[in-house]
């Protein structure tokens, strides 16, 4: 057959498929609703999980990790045991390399150490960070002040304590505490600082041990003027891998013994949450797929059963079996497209409404901060929802359509009454 004949046949098949879909309006509405429901569920669940991931990601990055952490080679594995062995060599040069890299927003130095914290009555262990107050504040947008103020640049003997840590030795803003630690030489050194503020982050575990003091104070206490890490903050989280690669290449080129870790490698908790939710989402996807397949399969079977006589007729008047198959597959496809589009439209609409209202969420496990989740509609989930509607529609039409195309003409004709 010439192309035009094929096109005409296809067009007519389309027309018939389309009209047949609207023949039984109630049934079609129910089927479309089922498909749309699947799409909506996918969009809302996917968008919700996406929002949780992103909030957790930003909280993780902006509580303390930054996007990238730059250390001396080996620090990540052995640094905690021998902190003084793994100070960054020529930190200024390293900093310059980083700052010169595109998409880097800023860099802030850190010196970490542990020791004992005493309020005079009680003593407990801590994990301290000597930081650049101004830069660290810029990084720590998810570091929230429970009481008092953040560190300030001029305030050399000020400190801020994590909420859990402060509570464990019962100190308040304005109290003076003593920090005790080992110096590089191995002796013990102490320093008194004033509590300026109590902070908390997304991570309770961190808040239970952490305190921050200005970098110079830390260096004075440790009697060492180095730093262990440079924390890099990027303009966009999505650039993390690219910048990491670029930096690694630069350091390799200049033969600097530097290693780089990205926040994803450091954020174990985040990875676990992502893993858990992704699995749950997979289960939801499977359930939705089954619902859509069953509802379309059912519609197609009913519609084909009702039209057995008609199938007999078109085959008798010369339609090949293949075109009967085509016709019903096309019907499934049209149902899938219509239902899928309805799902997209309603899904996006509902996502906007829900996001506008906000979903109040209890604190995440390991956290003490409640938050408001929204639904993030993103292209990937829209494509997936539409794709799933269409693909499942076709898949579930295959069996009924094959059955229709294999009917004995004479038997099928007998259904005409």
């Amino acid at each position, binding site marked *: 057959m010439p192309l035009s004949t094929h096109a005409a046949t296809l067009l007519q098949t389309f027309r018939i498929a389309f009209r047949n879909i609207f*023949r039984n309006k109630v049934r079609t509405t129910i089927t479309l609703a089922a498909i749309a429901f699947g799409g909506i569920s996918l969009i809302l669940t996917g968008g919700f999980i996406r929002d949780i991931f992103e909030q957790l990601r930003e909280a993780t990055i902006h509580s303390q990790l930054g996007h990238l952490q730059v250390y001396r080679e080996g620090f990540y594995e052995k640094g905690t045991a021998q902190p003084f062995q793994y100070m960054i060599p020529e930190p200024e040069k390293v900093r310059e390399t980083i700052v010169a890299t595109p998409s880097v927003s800023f860099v802030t130095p850190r010196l970490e150490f542990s020791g004992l914290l005493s309020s005079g009555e009680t003593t407990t262990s801590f994990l301290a960070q000597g930081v650049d107050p101004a830069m660290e504040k810029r990084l720590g947008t998810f570091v929230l002040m429970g009481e008092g103020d953040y560190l300030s640049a001029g305030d050399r003997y000020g400190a801020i304590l994590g909420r859990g840590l402060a509570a464990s030795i019962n100190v308040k803003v304005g109290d003076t505490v003593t920090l005790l630690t080992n110096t590089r030489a191995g002796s013990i050194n102490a320093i008194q600082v004033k509590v300026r503020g109590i902070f908390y982050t997304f991570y309770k575990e961190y808040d239970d041990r952490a305190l921050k003091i200005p970098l110079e104070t830390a260096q004075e206490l440790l009697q060492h003027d180095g730093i262990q890490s440079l924390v890099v903050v990027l303009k966009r989280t999505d650039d993390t891998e690219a910048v990491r690669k670029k930096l690694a290449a630069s350091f390799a080129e200049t033969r600097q013994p530097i290693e780089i870790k990205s926040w994803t490698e450091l954020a174990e908790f985040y990875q676990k949450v992502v893993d858990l939710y992704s699995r749950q989402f997979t289960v939801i996807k499977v359930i939705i797929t089954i619902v859509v397949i069953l509802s379309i399969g059912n519609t197609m079977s009913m519609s084909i059963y009702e039209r057995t006589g008609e199938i007999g007729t078109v085959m008798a008047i010369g339609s090949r079996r293949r075109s009967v198959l085509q016709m019903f597959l096309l019907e499934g496809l049209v149902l899938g497209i219509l239902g899928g589009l309805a799902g997209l439209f309603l899904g996006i609409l509902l996502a906007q409404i829900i996001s506008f209202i906000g979903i109040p969420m209890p604190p995440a496990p390991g956290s003490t901060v409640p938050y408001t989740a929204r639904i993030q509609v993103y292209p990937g989930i829209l494509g997936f929802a539409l794709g799933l509607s269409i693909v499942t529609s076709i898949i579930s039409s295959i069996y009924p359509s094959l059955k229709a195309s294999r009917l004995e003409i004479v038997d099928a004709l007998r259904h*005409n009454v």
Partner: protein
Amino acid sequence: MPVVDCQGLVRDYALGKTIVHALRNVSLSVDEGDFLAIVGSSGSGKTTLLNMIGCIDTPDGGTVSIDGQPTGGLSSDDLADVRSQKIGFIFQTFNLIPVLSAVENVEYPLLRHRLSSKERRDRALHALEMVELGHVGKNKPNELSGGQRQRVAIARALAVNPRIVLADEPTANLDHKTGLNILHLMKRINKQAGTTFIFSTHDPKVMELAERLVELEDGEITTVGTYRRWDPTGALAHLSHHIDDIIDNMFEHEY
């Protein structure tokens, strides 16, 4: 050369443990331009025979040739092509496609022919005019009366210029008068266009219009003749093929 040639057709149905012999050794040949009625009591095998001729069922024995082409051994697609090119069907229950308008229904079998969409539309409209329904082309089947539906079905059967039109009890679902009108229409087309018609019927008034009658009884042809000569009591039950041929010739000379 006959348009339809059936030789020794056998068709058995298994009904539980018993076997129903729907056709036993039926031979029939139909010439171009025939207007042939197949009659017989219910269950005598009329539908089965028409199905064999229409290539929508395959015999358990014997052969069917359409337009000189044997159909035995053809694939389902090839049979579909034979039907689409050479055979028009008219059904007792009209069997129009409900979602298509009258003219679209008539166009439907033409989709399998090499035609531009304009030619297709023109032919469909022409066929509708032949059945005097040019004015209802846009209507859906459920907006038409039974008689009008059957006329649309006739137009659909004729649109492809088939060699044969097969009609299994085309008037059974119509009132008597409408049924006769349908038959008159078929006959007029048969006369004007020379299209071969084979139809089955129970209705003696309809039989009267046939030019040739084939009577089936229990899966066998018992009588071949014309209505006037056909005797329902069976007086001519064993009319020979020889006489049959003579009658045929007589008719051919009549018009």
